[in-house]
């Protein structure tokens, strides 16, 4: 934990603080149907045109049911759109590698994954997806799912801010304005900056480079039909040599052994089926190319996280320099952080907005420090083999990022529901890997996904004021609105659905053949891999303990369901909560009102989040990363 790393952390926090207010003020204009921005002269005509082809009256507002219905319908239509492209990519243009169609389960998983802002990658980017699939089928959701999340957050904030009203805004207007005025302009600038750092943006076919030093590898020999050739040698086992009478032959009192063919159950001799290997000289390197920067910019700003390449933001093209890494980390939190300012501004209680931000940052920094400490400390098993101990745990990390920037990225990408990775979480130390996992399981309310983080956190705020109300024996109030049984029920429903999905699916996978077949690691780390997968899917995060082979029909379907549950079964109760809150009268604060700003509130809010997270997930975590930590210390291997 070097001093230069502390400086980088300080700069990151300062930069985040600095952009929060400007972002919040800009959001005020974007999320107001009559808002004004300096981009109006360019974008306004396109916005109007879009409403016209959609047949939308931008002045008409929706109640909670209509708003939710529009959101669900849009998600369904755009999900089907993506599924169709993935299944038909071999017939569509922009496929220079001639990649085939995705299987139905993989296409379902991927379409759901991007629709729900999860961007879980069951597919391997550069080997599965044509440029068209990347550019259209996936990128559209990077924008749309981000805009949808922001729209839902805006609707909930309006519900809190409005006094005795019935409507929450117009979903179509929120969707279009967020995409056109917020995401597109930011991404355009950001993508160009990323290219300046070395990120690629082209439509070239994959490039072939001539190696300086050709080398030889062993590959399976293929026959004329392209099928692997296998050995056909008989399998031999040792058996005692028998004499004519059927008695074992002894030499010096020991049975003489013979090699005999091994027989299978039917009494037939068994043969080995090993592939025949032949030498192949590798003298070129094929380098994947593509329109990457435009997709990466939105994958970060929209907290989507789906990588253009399999290695995601660890790939040198996808994150070429430490500076590009810093900007990507900042962009993950940018909009979510600005939304807390938007909350304060809308509710005319800026101290409340900053207090929510403060609670998020307290939990975020705790996670960063623990993860960083664990990774810098390294793995004692490997150090005993003769590694430089101060280098920390470098397995699955890149030199240009080092321990600190890999740990910081891991904490950010899981605090937000981004899911991009610049290091392989699967290879983190036990405690270093626990932090991203726990971050996701807390509900990704530490800044969180764009929009999703804020509406998730507001659910906890409702619970926190409810608990505070119970403690002092008064009717709970949130910013002048009375919190009743209905609101608390909806809040609890939104939270319990997540827990049920994560723990339920994990438990199922852990006792099933299909679940255990995908494991890359044995022992407690295997449990962590499965737990991480369903946490990530339900939390709409998308990062992974990537060793798990999840591209199987069982995993693709169960993970797809977990993503749908985590997204939509959470949003519906939250919208019901919004529908109830918006109708309530705002009563002026009295002497007994629990203040929703300041240290006590932050403490109570953090306490509520941690308490619910801990109660739900500590038992599972104890069996995974915690046990693994102690086994690592003892040098136990699996």
């Amino acid at each position, binding site marked *: 934990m070097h001093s230069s790393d502390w400086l980088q952390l300080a700069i990151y926090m300062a930069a985040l603080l600095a952009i929060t207010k400007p972002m919040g003020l800009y959001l005020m204009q974007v999320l107001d149907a009559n808002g004004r921005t300096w981009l109006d002269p360019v974008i306004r005509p396109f916005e109007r045109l879009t409403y016209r082809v*959609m047949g939308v009256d931008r002045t008409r507002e929706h109640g909670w049911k209509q708003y939710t219905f529009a959101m669900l319908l849009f998600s369904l239509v*755009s999900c089907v759109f993506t599924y169709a492209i993935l299944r038909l990519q071999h017939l569509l243009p922009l496929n220079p590698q001639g990649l085939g169609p995705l299987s139905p389960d993989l296409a379902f998983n991927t379409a759901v994954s991007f629709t729900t802002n999860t961007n879980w990658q069951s597919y*391997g980017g550069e080997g599965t997806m044509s440029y068209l699939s990347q550019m*259209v089928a996936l*990128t*559209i959701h990077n*924008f*749309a799912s981000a805009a949808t999340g922001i729209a839902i957050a805006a609707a909930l904030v309006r519900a809190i801010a409005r006094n005795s009203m019935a409507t929450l805004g117009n979903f*179509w207007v929120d969707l279009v304005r967020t*995409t*056109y005025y917020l995401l*597109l302009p930011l991404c355009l600038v950001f993508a*160009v900056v990323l*290219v*300046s750092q070395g990120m*690629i*943006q*082209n439509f*070239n076919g994959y*490039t072939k*480079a*001539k190696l*300086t*030093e050709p*080398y030889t*590898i062993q590959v399976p020999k293929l026959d004329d039909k392209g099928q692997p050739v296998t050995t056909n040698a008989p399998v031999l086992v040792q058996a005692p040599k028998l004499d004519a009478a059927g008695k074992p032959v002894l030499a010096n009192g020991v049975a003489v052994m013979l090699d005999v063919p091994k027989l299978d159950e039917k009494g037939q001799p068994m043969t080995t089926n090993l592939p025949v290997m032949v030498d192949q000289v*590798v003298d070129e*390197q*094929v*380098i*994947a190319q593509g329109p990457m920067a*435009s997709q990466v*910019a*939105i994958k970060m700003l929209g907290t989507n996280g789906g990588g253009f390449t*399999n*290695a995601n933001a660890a790939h*040198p093209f996808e994150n070429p320099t*430490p500076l590009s*890494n*810093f900007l990507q980390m900042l962009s993950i939190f940018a909009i979510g952080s600005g939304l807390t300012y938007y909350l304060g501004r809308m509710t005319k209680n800026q101290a409340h907005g900053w207090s929510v931000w403060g609670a998020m940052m307290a939990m975020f920094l705790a996670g960063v420090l623990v993860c960083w400490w664990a990774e810098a400390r390294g793995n004692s098993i*490997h150090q005993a*083999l*003769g590694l430089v101990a101060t*280098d920390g*745990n470098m*397995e*699955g990390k*890149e030199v240009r990022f080092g321990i600190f920037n*890999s740990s910081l990225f891991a904490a950010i990408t899981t605090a937000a529901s981004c899911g991009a990775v*610049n290091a392989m979480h*699967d*290879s983190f130390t036990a405690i270093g*890997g626990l932090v991203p996992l726990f971050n996701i399981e807390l509900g990704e309310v530490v800044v969180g996904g764009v929009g999703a983080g804020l509406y998730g956190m507001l659910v906890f705020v409702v619970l926190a004021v409810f608990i505070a109300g119970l403690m002092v024996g008064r009717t709970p109030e949130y910013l002048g609105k009375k919190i009743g049984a209905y609101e608390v029920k909806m809040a609890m429903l939104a939270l319990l659905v997540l827990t049920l999905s994560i723990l339920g699916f994990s438990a199922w996978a852990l006792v099933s053949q299909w679940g255990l077949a995908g494991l*890359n*690691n*044995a*022992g*407690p780390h295997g449990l962590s891999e499965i737990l991480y997968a369903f946490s990530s899917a339900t939390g709409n995060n998308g990062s992974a303990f990537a060793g798990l082979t999840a591209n199987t029909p069982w995993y693709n379907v169960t993970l797809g369901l977990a993503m749908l549950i985590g997204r939509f079964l959470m949003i519906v109760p939250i919208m019901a909560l919004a529908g109830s809150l918006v109708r309530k009268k705002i009563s002026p604060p009295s002497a007994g009102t629990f203040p929703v700003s300041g240290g006590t509130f932050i403490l109570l809010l953090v306490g509520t989040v941690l308490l619910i997270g801990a109660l739900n997930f500590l038992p599972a975590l104890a069996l995974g990363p915690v046990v693994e930590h102690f086994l690592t210390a003892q040098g136990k*291997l*699996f």
Partner: protein
Amino acid sequence: MKTFLSELRGAVMVTLALAVVTCGLYPLAVWGIAQVAFRDKANGSLIVEHGVLRGSRLIAQAFIGEKYFHPRPSAAGANGYDATSSGGSNFGPTSQKLNDAIKDRIATYRTENGLKEGTPVPADAVTASASGLDPHISPANAELQIARVAKARNLPVAKVRELVAANTATADFSIFGDAGVNVLELNLTLDRL
């Protein structure tokens, strides 16, 4: 029913509108600007020598000979350094396979570079990177390989050390990230001598 149809129309049309704008106009605009302003970078920072493409400055290649600096171990693709199949080993902290691999790599590294038994080996030299294409090694790792390369090429150690320094990317603005030595560029520089 009427509301449903009008909402459905909205959903379908906005999907198409977003497809045109965010998937057509936007990436093409970025492509246009990138190809004009940062042509080399946008096409993969390729190294071309005498009309032959030698690789990308950002992508690691395999080097095993004693006259070359060696990159980090790679788990990309079946045989490593596969720039169409990036990724890490994904072995966890208590993995037997990872433990065995690191043990072997440490032994090989010490033998290759003439290090005494028990010399601590830089972690990056014996662990697989996240992408499998990490173009860099740590300066400490490069330092331990200098003597071997200098001997194999009959060059003064000081000269090789100078080239290592010239191919080291320091932290951006001296603040962000960690320093790294670009292995491919360094090896190509050595070959040009």
